[in-house]
């Protein structure tokens, strides 16, 4: 079955009793047992069934099943947010005293989690540029438990070779964990390229409408079982309603991503020619340093782009304050075009030096291209750039 068909039908079965085609929202915190023994068997996991929504819920599980299917994974688990998904993976894989190798260009919230929170739990983290293979190999030591990358990377759209990283990880008997939020399985399926674990902020393209917060992990069934054991006690459970909204949003993932890509390409090409733009970061541009890798592992190039405005941070500020159609806001993957300044917003957890090391210049502006008419977005950028 093609990914487009899976996106529509995947994980969906008419409700057994009522025949409802769209899955019901099980907005319930708890579930009735047939009798005391039934409850005990469920707790001992001798029998499948539902106990309490933090431990599992039919609506939430359906979402996990669907995303696993889209990512060509065996199983999945859904969380209250993308960061909860990543945190739970790290807690399950990496104990105190152990070590993580992580690419240095990742979402700012993930960076703060790795830089500040994980070390407090006794976890050591090495940040590096994972496109540099010799650096990657030499960073791995006997305590390393996982390699973590995000590609395309937020916010610079750096593309990391998933297959190569997987090869290196597997050579050292390590799992590779990929944050696939920017691409979605419509454009890129890391597990098919060798990755072991894929994480998502479902808040972004999965939900697609800016109305939920959610996260997902997919991988091998055994791993997801281990993850569940920890996750149920850590407690970052998503609301069944948010899970249901995500299921609903997912149905149009293919058509949305298709249009996001078309719009982003047009805008990237427009910006590349604009005299007030120093550099455009979009993996679909031939000038993009990792265009070849992108072409190899992605079917299209996504809806995210970045750019440096001539005149640096101050010029970028004028631009962001002058847009009328684009919304000055963080988050991404919405139907609306969102514009933001990573250095002072999404990636403010990076120090100035760390920003530069990750290739994020002071004036770097990130654009999450929405589903408006591309000409209207361009017109808005044009008038805003005119104010500089």
């Amino acid at each position: 079955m093609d990914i487009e068909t899976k996106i529509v039908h995947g994980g969906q079965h008419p409700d057994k009793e009522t025949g409802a085609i769209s899955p019901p929202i099980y907005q319930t915190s708890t579930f009735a047992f047939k009798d005391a023994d039934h409850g005990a068997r469920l707790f001992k996991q001798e029998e499948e069934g539902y106990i309490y929504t933090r431990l599992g819920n039919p609506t939430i599980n359906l979402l996990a099943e669907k995303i696993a299917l889209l990512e060509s994974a065996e199983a999945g688990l859904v969380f209250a947010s993308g960061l909860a998904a990543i945190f739970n993976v790290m807690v399950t894989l990496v104990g105190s005293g152990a070590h993580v190798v992580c690419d240095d260009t990742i979402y700012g919230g993930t960076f703060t989690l790795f830089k500040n929170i994980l070390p407090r739990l006794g976890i050591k983290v090495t940040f590096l540029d994972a496109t540099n293979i010799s650096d990657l190999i030499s960073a791995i030591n006997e305590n390393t438990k996982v390699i973590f990358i995000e590609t395309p990377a937020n916010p610079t759209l750096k593309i990391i070779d998933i297959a190569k990283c997987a090869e290196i990880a597997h050579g050292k008997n390590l799992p590779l964990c990929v944050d696939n939020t920017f691409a979605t399985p419509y454009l890129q399926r890391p597990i098919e390229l060798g990755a072991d674990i894929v994480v998502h902020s479902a808040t972004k393209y999965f939900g697609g409408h800016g109305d939920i917060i959610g996260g997902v992990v997919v991988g091998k069934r055994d791993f997801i079982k281990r993850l569940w054991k920890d996750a149920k006690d850590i407690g970052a459970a998503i609301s069944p309603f948010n899970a249901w909204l995500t299921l609903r949003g997912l149905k149009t993932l293919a058509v949305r991503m298709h249009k996001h890509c078309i719009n982003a390409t047009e805008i990237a090409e427009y910006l590349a020619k604009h005299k007030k733009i120093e550099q455009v970061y979009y993996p679909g541009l031939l000038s993009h340093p990792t265009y070849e890798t992108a072409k190899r592992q992605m079917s299209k190039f996504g809806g995210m782009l970045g750019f440096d405005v001539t005149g640096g941070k101050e010029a970028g500020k004028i631009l962001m304050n002058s847009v009328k159609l684009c919304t000055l806001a963080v988050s991404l993957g919405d139907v609306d075009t969102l514009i933001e300044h990573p250095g002072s917003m999404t990636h403010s957890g990076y120090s100035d030096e760390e920003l530069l090391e990750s290739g994020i210049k002071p004036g770097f502006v990130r654009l999450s291209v929405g589903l408006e008419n591309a000409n209207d977005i361009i017109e808005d950028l044009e008038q805003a750039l005119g104010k500089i």
Partner: protein
Amino acid sequence: MNEGVQKYVENAKKMIAERERYIKQKVKKWKFDTISVHGAYSVEEAIENNQGAIIEPIFMSSSQAFRDSDEMEAALSYLIPSWTYSRIHNPSIGYLEDTLALLDGYGFDGMTGCCVVASGMAAIASATEPFLVKLTNQTNEKINFVSTCQVYGGTFQQFNVRKMQERGIECRWVADPNNLDEWTSKIDKNTRFLFGELPSNPGLVFFDLKKVIDLAHEHGIPFIADSTVATPALLRPISSGADIVVQSVTKTMTASGFGIAGAVIARKNIISNIENDKMRTDFTNYIKLLPNRDMGPCLSPFQAVLSLNDIRTLRSRIDILSQSSMKVARFLETHPKVSRVNYLGLENHPLHGVANKYLWLVDSEYDEQYRKPVNRYGHLLSFEFKGGIQAARTMMDHLKRIWRATDLGRIKSVATIPSISTHQQMGDECRSMACIPCDLVRLCVGAEHPDDIIADLDQALSEVK
């Protein structure tokens, strides 16, 4: 009927019989609070059908898949209970309907049914339209119905403009619903039903329900009550003999303010001079499966579960809200700037006596804190000013915590001036007929501490010069 269809029909018969037995032998014997909490949603149903979910699932699905064409045929020809398509029915809608039918049928020996719809106004249309049909082929057939004129402005508009002016169906208004002679004088052989809203919004008019119902039945026509302001926690007209009750579920029932919903509740075998046995036998099932299927005023399943969730605390909520309202009414009654307070709980209200016959807090005799029947009067009240409309507007404009909005039934206190808002569309003449003076302020008391509500009213009233 082929064999396959037959099989589905037989299974359905067993299921229906079992369900009726459950409702009659178990659910109907519970107290009001237990029904509010559970409705007819059983532990067995949760475990067998819904993965054990304690809370009724929200079936956000427009349609139902069938096992085979036999089941489809049986369902679409209404031979088996099914839901088919959410314009007609839906499992989540069913949970809400069961609860509402049981609550408005509480204390009534017979069975009741319910059809929920998109709004209270849709409920009124759904409850009244089946009676406003032609009985003969004569084109000049003059149809009429009789209604109290103290009704919500939207109801007045539906009756006066949509039915009377646009379609020539005469609405005969009763000015004093406690005057039985006035009711009688308006009824003739073309009268299809009597309609009354009690207590009325915003004037809090009340009347002797049983007498008017008996009068309707003497003429072979049904009585339809709008019992929105009271809710079944205080008043259940079906127990007094009413045929049909309409509720704006949006109001006190869904106190959270999470959405718009309406309901028609009816007893089985209503009185009507319309020769339509399906309609008379099971009115709510009839409107659900036929007219409403064709007219389409269906409720969202999501809204159904939201409303259901609010209804679980109805009785205790209305008890507290009524007690707060009583305090607020007493404060207003003695305030020098206020000329009149309409609240049925005030001893000097002319309709206090008749209201006391009907407005009881359900099950107060089983309530530890009362141990005897207790009158309660709801959380809607209205008042007038010595300084007229200007005083009313000044007070309204200075409210700081009480919301200015056209809403009632909320967990939050809300005030409005009906003559410029909810009842504006009626016009001066109709408002004076319905006893809504221009300076009347309607206040629906929320669950804030009554001292804080009184303090806000006090400071706003002090601005009235």
